[in-house]
């Protein structure tokens, strides 16, 4: 059907004209795909009409099907399922949709469903499903936990997955995959799946993950279609079914192509010599922030951690008290109602500035925002672009983002970001594979509603991206785990979870197990958090138990921008009262610290190369005899580039680094060895991000220890890592290339001593998602206590008594794929092999190593016989 010839299109065009709006080309393109019943991906940034690109298409389709009575028809059942990662988005999107519906005089309803949805509202939805349902991945799974869910999805025409780039690469994305596989499995008739994504490096793959094997009207739709599906299972297209075959290349990608110019400006310290090398929050530059706030309508200040954002908020008020009342704080631990208020106020342009964390990365566009300030490294190009895109929403406006470094060297990142944006180097989001924990949870979910037949589900799983490579053996193991609880003592076992009924249906019959399962649906695992309330009542927010446990009554801390005096802990709630104390402790949240992306790391090395060029007095004189580096250097000289302002400002720092140690070129790896009163330090600077450095440190320590018994602790940041030992570290020109060799990498990583500890950390989330950790029912203290155990204890027990358990294996696989980022590690070692390693023995700490030295996150590892080590440690204690 040609879009522009349809009545629906005419109706929508006319309505848009009354709004003085014109459809964008990418919207019309998407509408056409919706009319054609196709699945695919819309690549559009926030605030460019991406919602309408799908929603209006669904309306056009509906009007075309009911040209005479589209306005009067009601109770049309579910037409559009809108999956969105953030509950906060639901409100705004719903509002926008309702405006259209009212404008067209239609009788559609828009509902939303998430953790905040009232029970009464859910009941109402059960009786009458709205035409549009806006839902989070978790609530979508809760829908699958309801009896008769297949009927809800039967009339569905379009499933839109908003902000797919955010979901992809996380276990929530896997949840979406699973839900889609089930919906398409039980559904009769076609349904389009449309992802909406910002620009990422792997758009094609993003589309594939979402729609592969699930595009409409293909074979293998499971038994629910009737008996013939089995025949089609071998792969061909069933006769009679439309001949649209699912394949990796299927599905459309519509690109909005609405590039907005982005202007990046660094906030530079006046005297770089006095700017801190590490351990600061950028507050020294706060006086340069005030004028920026003053000259723009609304400014968003992005801070990397919640703790830092609290400090920044307080400091802004201290420096400029008249900001009181017009600045706000927004982060994930602040009470939802307060956050909603902040978002509303932002929307209405009532706020001059908001100090925020990644909590405002997603979601509604706040039109009044004119400027964005990024404090500290954004860690990746995509994130930086997204934040920059938060400003200047009006057409024709330039998005302006200021970069405020928290330590000197971070300024190089600004230069690197600019270059990366210029070259369009956007990071990819790697989809997750074989997440057994999410699968186990999902099977439980299906088992509490209508139950499931393993063959149906296995077939659906083979069509998902995440589980397409799961073997029959692994599948059997999972079924065994949820029905028998793994290996047990036969007659003395009372394991009870999923039961196999006489007809082969897998079902959870225990109401308690079902109830507990419902409470645990989801894949976002937070640290043990306590609610914070005033003694007089009134909720403030959430805080980590770890932080509170170290406070004494009377101590003052800040949360949600308020100074609070800790009174006591009662019923998992920290009671506080307001405090007027000047000094307060800032809580630490162990939120995930993002590592530097590979793209940004590469750019960083390139920029440092330019810096090295800049400070080298006479490159040829320093060049090693006939080495590859010399040749590179002359090439660099032939094509002089205009040096970034950031690099020019940092010149004194680079000169100091060069004088104390060395400024590495792009193809060089610098290693510094320094002795201090703490012991012997070895600093290495690959600029590959914290996670890769963590793995590299473990690997290096292991390789060193093969020749010498030695113990290390280590620290890492995004630029490099440090090994620290109480004895000299034997690394010099004779063995250094061997130590950094990519040979035997996989085997050495697997033997590197830290794997168990890394897996233990990964296991925490896995155990919660997989249903091994029980958090207890409200008001059921004693009984619940007997079911409590820590993930760490479970990890010990499983490792020792059931080491091949799927979930333990998954923990190690996650370490390998995400933590170690094996591929990236390998690339790094290849790069080092082709380059040159430069060893230096500086007499004191250098600008490069200083940030590492103060980084507190440390890991232990040892290759010594334990008793020897304990004895030696003892000797030192005395």
């Amino acid at each position, binding site marked *: 059907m040609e879009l522009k010839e349809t009545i629906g299109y005419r109706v929508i065009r006319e309505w848009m004209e009354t709004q003085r709006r014109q459809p964008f080309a990418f919207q019309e393109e998407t509408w056409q795909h919706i009319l054609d019943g196709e699945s695919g991906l819309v690549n559009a940034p926030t605030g460019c009409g991406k919602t309408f690109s799908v929603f209006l298409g669904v309306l056009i389709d509906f009007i075309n099907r009911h040209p005479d009575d589209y306005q009067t028809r009601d109770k049309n059942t579910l037409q559009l399922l809108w999956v969105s990662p953030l509950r906060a988005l639901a409100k705004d999107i719903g509002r926008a949709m309702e405006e259209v519906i009212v404008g067209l005089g239609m009788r559609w309803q828009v509902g939303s469903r998430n953790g905040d949805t009232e029970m009464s509202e859910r009941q109402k939805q059960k009786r009458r499903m709205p035409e549009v349902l806006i839902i989070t991945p978790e609530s979508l799974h809760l829908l699958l936990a309801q009896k008769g869910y297949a009927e809800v999805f039967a009339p569905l025409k379009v499933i839109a997955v908003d902000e797919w780039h955010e979901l992809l690469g996380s276990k929530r994305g896997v949840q979406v995959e699973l839900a889609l596989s089930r919906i398409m499995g039980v559904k009769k008739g076609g349904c389009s799946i449309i992802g909406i994504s910002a620009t990422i490096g792997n758009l094609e793959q993003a589309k594939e993950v979402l729609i592969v094997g699930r595009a409409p009207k293909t074979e293998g739709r499971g038994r629910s279609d009737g008996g013939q599906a089995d025949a089609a299972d071998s792969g061909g297209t069933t006769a009679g079914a439309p001949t649209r075959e699912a394949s990796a290349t299927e599905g459309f990608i519509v690109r909005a192509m609405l590039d907005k110019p982005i202007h990046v400006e660094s906030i530079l310290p006046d005297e770089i010599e006095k700017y801190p090398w590490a351990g600061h929050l950028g507050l020294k530059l706060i006086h340069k922030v005030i004028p920026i706030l003053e000259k723009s309508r609304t400014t968003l200040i992005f801070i990397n951690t919640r703790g830092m954002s609290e400090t920044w908020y307080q400091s802004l008020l201290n420096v400029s008290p008249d900001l009181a009342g017009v600045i706000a704080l927004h982060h994930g631990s602040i009470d939802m109602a307060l956050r909603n208020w902040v978002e509303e106020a932002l929307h209405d342009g009532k706020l001059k500035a908001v100090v925020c964390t990644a909590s405002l990365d997603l979601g509604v566009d706040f039109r009044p925002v004119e400027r964005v300030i990024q404090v500290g490294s954004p860690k990746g190009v995509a994130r930086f672009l997204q934040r920059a895109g938060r400003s200047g929403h009006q057409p024709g406006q330039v998005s302006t983002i200021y970069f405020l470094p928290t330590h000197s060297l971070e300024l190089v990142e600004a230069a690197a970001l600019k270059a990366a944006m210029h070259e369009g180097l956007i990071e990819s989001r790697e989809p997750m594979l074989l997440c057994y924990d999410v699968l186990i949870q999902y099977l439980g979910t299906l088992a509490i509603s209508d139950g499931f037949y393993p063959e149906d589900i296995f077939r659906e799983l083979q069509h998902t991206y995440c589980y397409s490579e799961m073997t029959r053996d692994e599948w059997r193991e999972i079924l065994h785990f949820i029905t028998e*609880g793994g290996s047990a003592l036969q007659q003395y076992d009372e394991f009870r979870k999923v039961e196999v009924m006489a007809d082969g249906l897998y079902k959870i019959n225990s109401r308690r197990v079902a109830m*507990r399962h419902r409470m645990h649906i989801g894949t976002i695992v937070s640290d043990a958090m306590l609610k914070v309330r005033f003694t007089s009542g009134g909720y403030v927010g959430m805080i980590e138990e770890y932080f509170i446990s170290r406070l004494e009554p009377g101590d003052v801390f800040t949360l949600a921008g308020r100074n609070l005096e800790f009174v006591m802990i009662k019923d998992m709630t920290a009671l506080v009262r307001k405090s007027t104390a000047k000094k307060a402790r800032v809580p630490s949240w162990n939120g995930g610290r993002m590592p530097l992306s590979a793209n940004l790391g590469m750019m960083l090395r390139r920029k440092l190369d330019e810096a090295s060029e800049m400070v080298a007095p006479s490159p040829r004189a320093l060049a090693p005899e006939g080495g590859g580096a010399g040749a590179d250097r002359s090439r660099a000289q032939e094509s002089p580039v205009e040096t970034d302002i950031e690099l020019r400002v940092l010149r004194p720092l680079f000169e100091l680094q060069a004088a104390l140690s060395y400024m590495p070129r792009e193809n060089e790896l610098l290693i510094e060895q320094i002795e201090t009163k703490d012991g012997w330090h070895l600093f290495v600077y690959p600029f590959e991000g914290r996670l890769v450095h963590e793995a590299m440190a473990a690997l290096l320590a292991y390789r060193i220890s093969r020749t010498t018994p030695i*113990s290390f602790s280590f620290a890492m940041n995004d630029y490099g890592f440090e090994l620290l030992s109480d004895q000299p570290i034997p690394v010099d020109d004779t063995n250094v290339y061997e130590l950094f060799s990519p040979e035997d990498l996989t085997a050495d990583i697997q033997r590197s001593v830290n794997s168990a500890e890394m897996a233990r950390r990964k296991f925490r989330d896995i155990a919660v998602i997989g249903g091994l950790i029980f958090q207890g029912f409200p008001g059921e203290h004693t009984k619940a206590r007997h079911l409590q155990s820590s993930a760490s*204890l479970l990890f010990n027990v499983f490792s*020792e*008594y059931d080491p*091949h358990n799927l979930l333990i294996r998954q923990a190690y696989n996650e370490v390998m794929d995400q933590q170690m980022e094996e591929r990236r590690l390998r690339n790094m070692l290849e790069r080092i092999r082709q380059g040159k390693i430069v060893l230096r023995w500086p007499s004191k700490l250098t600008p490069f190593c200083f940030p590492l030295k103060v980084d507190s996150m440390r890991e*232990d590892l*040892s290759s010594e*016989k334990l008793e020897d080590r304990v004895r030696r440690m003892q000797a030192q204690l005395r």
Partner: protein
Amino acid sequence: MQPAFPHRIRGQQLWLSPHRCLFWEEERSLILSDLHFGKTGHFRKAGIAVPQSVYREDLLRLLSLIQYFQPRQLLVVGDLFHSRENKELDLFRRWRDDFPDLAIRLILGNHDILHEGWYEAAGITVSQQVLRMGEFAFIHDITEWAPSPEAPYFFSGHLHPGIRIRGMGKQSLQFPCFYFGGQYAVLPAFGKFTGTVSIDPPPDSNVFAILPPSGGEGFRSGAGERGWPVRGRQHAGSDQQAGPGGVNREEHGTSHGKRGNRGPFGAGSIFQIQ
């Protein structure tokens, strides 16, 4: 069986076993704490698939301790059982019936919530709070004890003590431990499905860490002692995969269990910390 470590308190001879209990020679009594029997069953009943072999090996370990020390009684300072009655406790009953001459005296812990009749039927003599025997007294939670001048020496549990040792270069390790203060001792938890709580002992006390055979529980650095469980599907089923790890491994036990480097009861050695 690993050799026990001698220690004297008030003229009495004690033997500390790396299997997390101690033997009182004069009274031929095995003193244990926090066994938490039935805990895996309790979890499994609720649909949490904890491997039940933990419990089986706890029972087997206790059996071999009884064979080794030949005690005339077990003195359990609380939390012999984890929660309510379940089938795992039936297994305990069968196990118990194999030792009709062995007395079991239980000082009730906060987890021991079974009916009086159950203990009686199982041949367990129960003491409500404190049991006194000569120079010694036994209590579950030492914090519930009101000090008096002519007090006996107390043995307690409840805490699941662990000792963290720090060294240069910010190194640290944690092990289950025995704690001996001037007035009382705290025993390590016997059950393997229990965690440890780090203690901060005063300088005049004695602390004995229980070191695992080669790394293992309590290691911050989990020194690769069990190697890397086979990855993905490549070598599923190979049980002997345990890599050499970074550890210069040396077996302490003589018997090698079927799981390669870990003996059936995987004990290590006692190491006096202070």
